[in-house]
């Protein structure tokens, strides 16, 4: 496989990051995480606020090798014990127009506004989040995602599989992202 599809695949993951269930009302949870997104290093940080009635809201920033940046606002509501649903709105941009011959500015990935409905389930130390990303800029149904987060005590480990849906970038499989992070309660 040539380099270009790999790089394009990497940018695909630079869409809104799957969040978690809302924290308790009045509590603020700050998280920071870093790892690998397909081929490139990725880091991100977010703040989530617990609101009355099982609601929650948050903002986060993620970058992939410093070349793609995604800013996300999220809303969550707890619908049952251990279950939450929500929606993320995100905006992604590139700081470079081209990388190794791949025209990033024309890439459908992390390019413009996106919206992502999610459902989250928590059981013990394991949280599962599933979502799908719809791109509003140059509209298209971009991808579906499944993320598993495991609470390892001092840190959490999150693995995400993203399945591209658009014809131009479809692959036989999924695109992985693995991060290790820490959550601080304020």
């Amino acid at each position: 496989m040539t380099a270009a599809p790999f790089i394009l695949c990497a940018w695909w993951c630079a869409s809104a990051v799957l969040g978690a269930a809302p924290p308790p009302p009045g509590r603020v949870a700050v998280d920071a995480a870093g790892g690998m997104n397909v081929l490139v290093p990725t880091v991100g940080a977010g703040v989530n606020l617990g609101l009355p009635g099982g609601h929650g809201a948050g903002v986060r920033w993620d970058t992939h090798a410093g070349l793609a940046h995604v800013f996300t606002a999220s809303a969550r509501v707890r619908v049952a014990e251990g279950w939450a649903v929500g929606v993320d709105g995100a905006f992604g941009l590139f700081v470079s127009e081209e990388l190794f011959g791949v025209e990033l500015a024309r890439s459908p990935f992390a390019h413009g506004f996106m919206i992502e409905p999610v459902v989250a389930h928590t059981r013990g130390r394991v949280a599962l989040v599933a979502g799908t990303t719809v791109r509003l800029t140059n509209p298209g149904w971009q991808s579906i995602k499944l993320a598993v987060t495991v609470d390892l005590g001092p840190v959490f480990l999150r693995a995400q599989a993203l399945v591209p849906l658009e014809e131009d970038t479809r692959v036989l499989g999924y695109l992985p992202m693995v991060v290790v992070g820490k959550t601080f309660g304020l």
Partner: protein
Amino acid sequence: MSASAALAGAFTLHLLGGFAVSDVVPALPPAPLLTGEVQVGYGLSDAFELRARYATHVGLHHRLGLDLRAAFGTGAWTVGARLEPSVRVGGTPEDVAGDVSTQAALLLGWRDGPTAVTAEAGVTVQWLLWDPAGVDDEPYFAFIDAAAQVEHALPSGTVLLGRLELAVPRAPDDPFAVLGVHPRVLVGAAWRL
């Protein structure tokens, strides 16, 4: 759980993840690629184990195999062998590539209490290769394989694993090799189901 086979009638689950280092983007230094695998083993007897194995590189290339293992020995030392026929497929719907291969290896294990070390040496033969350009059904002695695995059993029964694999391609012009090898580092855990 590597050089030694699983107990007869027992199922085991192995989950491993890590990096395979590859010169996938020639304009950049060799890049670490996410890799991982899942193995489900079943002890056919006290000496033989059959494992179903799924391994992936960056979620784009997938290998499914059946790994038959044998292990013999008493005390600290164990000798064994494994034979794994497998199929690899990956790429994009318009650019499918893959192979049918068999890996055969000899294993030497040493155990001291909860900790075990296993060294592995073997070869991989590709029986069939396919890509958009066509199918090559000429058998090819593709890799010389070496691996080392360290295991540590926790009191809970969980076994922590660390594994280093080095596959030496026999093709002199392998574009993805790093210093002439395909290195792969994995960490993970195993549980009895």
